[in-house]
């Protein structure tokens, strides 16, 4: 039994005054494919402060992972076409050399993935994989590195850590593998942790454990967390603010309470209503017609237009800009005001 600690408010108020630790401006990532050029991420901007949690929400193919992989340097140009800026501590990461990026990766930025079992090396023991980080980055002795690995495994609550150093990834369950991934990511005490669908593959009770763990390490270390997910429940419980993506573009960006209370974009509204809830019964779900577009055939104008209940002729001609609706609340819809007041 645990009580979920509410997010440390003082930390948040203090950080609100601070400049963002990372700021992404007009990031675009495109690929050339046999089906023609594809814009996976299209003019995306967001920022995150110290200790803050940003959720990036979207369905498959919305470009939520590609954007972050680009920031981590996992997607390179060429083959991708990357434009825009991504400032970390005042410097544009996208202009950095490979060596500078590598120094940042792991030390300042770390990432964990959905499928932890495939992200780990199956032929090395867990102990080797965690202690390797200390040996390569800090040049410590094997014994010291092992001690640090055990410390870290204790922190992410892997039971009897020392005796499990010699185990291989396949001997761990899905939840334990995710803990190992989190331990690896935390090894160098990063300032930002990017979690790409960290709990999607896990069972409900284990998902709860991993979410609590992420929240705990975030609050302990004052770390920023970027959470990629399609699960609005996870978003509501962990994030401070959110960006909703559709077809590579930002549909809406808002503080978390505003997004859930007063969604302005028809897509976010529909998404909130389409998700079945454990706390309400069997009335019909409101669903969004059609399927998300393939990126090689994005509709003209507003990408959400063919599935939108409020679609007007203008939507086909003109692509909506991301507009300020309220402080800290932007939406990319021509009719955001009318829709909000109409319903």
């Amino acid at each position, binding site marked *: *039994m*645990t*009580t*979920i*600690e*509410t*997010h440390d408010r003082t930390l948040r108020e203090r950080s609100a005054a601070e400049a963002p630790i990372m700021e992404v401006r007009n990031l675009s990532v495109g690929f050339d494919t046999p089906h023609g050029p594809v814009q996976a991420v299209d003019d995306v901007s967001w920022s995150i402060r110290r200790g803050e949690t940003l959720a990036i929400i979207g*369905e*498959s193919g919305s470009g939520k992972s590609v954007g972050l992989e680009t920031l981590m340097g996992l997607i390179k140009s060429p083959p991708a076409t990357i434009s825009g800026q991504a400032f970390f501590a005042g410097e544009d990461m996208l202009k950095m050399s490979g060596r500078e990026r590598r120094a940042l990766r792991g030390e300042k930025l770390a990432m964990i993935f959905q499928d932890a079992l495939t992200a780990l090396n199956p032929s090395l023991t867990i102990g080797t994989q965690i202690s390797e980080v200390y040996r390569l980055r800090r040049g410590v002795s094997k014994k010291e590195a092992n001690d640090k690995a055990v410390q870290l495994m204790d922190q992410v609550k892997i039971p009897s850590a020392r005796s499990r150093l010699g185990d291989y990834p396949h001997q761990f*369950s899905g*939840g*334990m593998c995710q803990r190992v991934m989190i331990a690896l990511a935390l090894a160098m005490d990063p300032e930002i942790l990017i979690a790409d669908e960290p709990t999607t593959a896990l*069972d*409900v*009770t*284990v*998902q*709860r*454990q991993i*979410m*609590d763990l992420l929240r705990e390490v975030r609050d302990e270390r004052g770390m920023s967390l970027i959470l990629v997910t*399609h*699960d*609005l*429940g*996870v*978003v*509501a*419980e962990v994030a401070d603010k959110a960006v909703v993506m559709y077809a590579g573009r930002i549909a809406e960006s808002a503080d*978390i*309470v505003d997004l*859930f209370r007063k969604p302005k974009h028809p897509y976010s509204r*529909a*998404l*909130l209503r*389409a*998700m*079945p*809830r*454990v*706390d*309400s*019964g*069997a009335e*019909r*779900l*409101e*669903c*969004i*017609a059609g*399927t*998300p577009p393939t990126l090689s055939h994005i509709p003209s104008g507003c990408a959400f237009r063919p*599935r939108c209940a409020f679609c007007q002729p203008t939507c086909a001609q003109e692509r909506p800009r991301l507009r300020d609706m309220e402080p800290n609340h932007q939406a990319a819809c021509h009719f955001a005001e009318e829709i909000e007041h109409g319903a």
Partner: protein
Amino acid sequence: MVHESIIGKHPEQERDVMLYARGLVKSFAMKSHQGWRTVEQEIRAVNDVGFSLGRGETLGLVGESGCGKSTLAKMLVRLIEPTAGSIELDGEDILSLNTEAMRQMRRRIQMIFQDPYSSLNPRMTVAEIIGESWVVFPDIVPPEKREERISELLHQVGLNTSDADRYPHQFSGGQRQRIGIARALAVEPEVIICDEPVSALDVSVQAQVINLLMDIQRDTGVAYVFIAHDLSVVRHISDRVMVMYLGEIIEGGPVEQVFEHPQHPYTAALLSSVPVQDPEQKGRRVLALPGEVPSPMNPPPGCKFHTRCPYATDICRTQAPETQGDMMQRGVRCHHTDRLDFSEYLEHIRARATG
């Protein structure tokens, strides 16, 4: 041991029960090595499960991975042979049927699978996939009407008539799941076993498929056994629900009662752990469970849940609890159910139910 107690001894008058399972057990033999010796070990994937399904009703089956829910689903259509127990459809024992009689029986029981990618033959067109069952059951639709019936079925599941000549790879995940549903509907079944039919789909598409399944039930009166790990989805679609843990049903009953007033600590923990789509619930109290589901190779003695149960006492460690009540009306398998109160962990669910 097979207990009679799972289903109450009184036949249910108000429900028109069609599918009736009792004491279902599936054990697998697993070979393990102890030095030079090879030892055969029995793993009970499903242990003493019973339920009944009324006509036009949806029975939800919830549980975490490895709890045996998919094994149970496959036993119901005899894709896996049960080790013990009985399954009756309108009084006829399915398990005693020979191959040909079972083939005829599958006209009444169909299945929809989780993975819409691997459950459709990539070399067959949609029309061939849907019409294949008519090769076995030629009397369902006369040959000259088949094309028309395929269009009808496609229309019913929200696809276009023109899709009949296309191949599965030309469709998205949600559309493929619709093809799988149309295939199941082609033989006009009375029961469809749905094994995680929406868990591979995107949120917006998931809602469409759930609505589709509910519409089909309204129009055709088909009954579903609906298996899922997502409690929200189960709540939406089910009339009754059973919760499984390590091969056993630990709680069951009408869906509102189980979700709003769970009696088993595992059910309460599951419900409390689901993230709620409401940022103002951030600080709510959660009944979080420690550890993970134990391996079925090595199940704990006594109550199988005691290793993770925050309320476990000595009796739980030594003695397996009996089922109290009827899992279809309201049943639970816990020693301490009378003295447990989970309301502080479930305020968010009850608040919305009443308000």
